[in-house]
């Protein structure tokens, strides 16, 4: 494509907040077909920056109970391996463990998933991606964290680059301990999660929305090059 460049990149000033801005996020002066020019700021213009809102459960108790039951029986897992534990997830779907029995299915897109499995240690870089994916899931959504790394840092507890406590960055419903937990432990984790959902305790999404500022502050504390909108719709 021999495409004429119809834009001009505006170099950002050297202020602190622009320190980690990547070139593709620089503002640019764009020439419209009619010759007018205007500024496009990728970070503001390409993304919706609305904050998440908590969604109240259904006011009718019975209905909510029924829906919670349905949610618990139909858990769609986001197939996004974040750490070493992702290798433990695949056997779940094989005949030996067959998580389908419990209504657990894998889904390749966050839009349709309900459960995000953080499978082990999270470096800061991965955390950023994990947050994006989590925010792209629709409420109600759940998080299951595998391994001691997500609980207290595990063997990476003093690493310069690995987080220690996942629940400071996103609400966690179930921790499955172990290094790494075996698929059986994961199945047990699913059972625990289902129980929680049925009890109406699976309100992680609302928790996240309600304490949004706190979570964001924690995330931003360690993710220094925050070159994305505050909430990834």
């Amino acid at each position, binding site marked *: 494509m021999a495409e004429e460049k119809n834009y001009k990149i505006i170099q950002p000033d050297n202020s602190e907040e622009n320190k980690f801005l990547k070139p593709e996020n620089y503002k640019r002066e764009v020439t419209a077909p009619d010759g007018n020019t205007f500024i496009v700021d990728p970070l503001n213009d390409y993304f*919706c920056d609305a904050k*998440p*809102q908590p*969604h109240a459960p259904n006011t009718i108790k019975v209905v909510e109970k029924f*829906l919670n039951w*349905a*949610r618990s*029986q*139909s858990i769609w897992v986001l197939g996004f391996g974040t750490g070493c534990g992702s290798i433990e997830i695949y056997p779940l779907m*094989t*005949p030996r463990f*067959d998580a*389908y*029995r419990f*209504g657990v*299915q894998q*889904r*390749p*897109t966050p*839009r*349709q998933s*309900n459960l995000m499995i953080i499978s082990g240690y999270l470096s800061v870089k991965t955390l950023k991606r994990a947050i994006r994916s989590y925010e792209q899931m*629709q*409420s*109600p959504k759940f998080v299951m964290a595998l391994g001691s790394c997500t609980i207290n840092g595990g063997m990476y507890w003093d690493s310069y680059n690995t987080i220690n406590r996942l629940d400071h960055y996103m609400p966690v419903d179930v921790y499955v301990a172990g290094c790494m937990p075996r698929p059986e432990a994961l199945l047990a984790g699913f059972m625990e999660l289902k129980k929680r959902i049925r009890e109406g305790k699976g309100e992680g*999404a609302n928790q996240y929305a309600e304490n949004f500022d706190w979570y964001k502050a924690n995330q931003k504390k360690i993710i220094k090059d925050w070159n994305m909108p505050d909430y990834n*719709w």
Partner: protein
Amino acid sequence: MKIVYVLLGLFIIINYGLLQAGVLRRITARVGKRIGVPFYQPYIDLIKNYAIRSQFSHGVMFYLGPVFRLSGGVGIFLFMPLIFGNEIFSNYSMAGDLILIMYFMFIGMLGMALGAGEGGHPYSIIGITRGLSQFTTVEVPFTLAVISIAIQYQTLSITEIVAAQQGGIMHWTLMTNPLATGAAMLSFLGMMMYAPFNVVNAPQENPLGPPTEFHGTFLGMLQTNRVILGVMEAILFMNLFFGGATNWGILFIKAFLIYFYPVFVGAVFPRYRIDQSIRWFLYLPTALGILAIIFI
């Protein structure tokens, strides 16, 4: 009054379709030596999706796309006579014939394409282009088969085609026009988009294809449509080639068996690449279709 019966029919079809989908998934799991999902899993998935609390929209067409899609599916239901000899369940089949139903399928495809397009995800578009590309050649043998049976029965009205097949298995198109049936059943594989022709959604490769961006109620609508569409296509083939149905029982059995066939093939065969599958339909199935017209 008609509307009540139509809604009743729709209700039956949706429930039947959901149960059938669950049972078939369980059968597929058994083929893989798994236990598989409970047979009521499709219900739960559907309920769960309709119960998703937060939703977003990429724009008007993203919102309307699922409506179009479901309209396509329901439309096929509305214009399809279900039970032969039963005025109640002939729906609005007096408004159009076989051609109408063939072209009504496109409405749903267009809706999906527009919705996915407005979603703006490249994977969606890749899926859509694949789906459309494959669909062009899938339709060829089916068209030939339709022409063939239209010549055979000298009518395009589904009711009359079914009527002509009454009186035992030997009167079915399957027996009287096996070539057309063969061509159509091969293109049925492509229509149902199970393996080897499922490169459109292509899990693991092109995450989910067209509905990548859809979620919640939108996804629920797409799923509902998938249920209706699957059953209705099976019923279409039943009416055209397998003697139709004179009561709900026969309809359920025949539809199940017809639907089972692509699932079975899909459980056994691996996936074609898109250009392979485009070409495949122009070989054996089209040849069968041509023979069906020549030897009618």
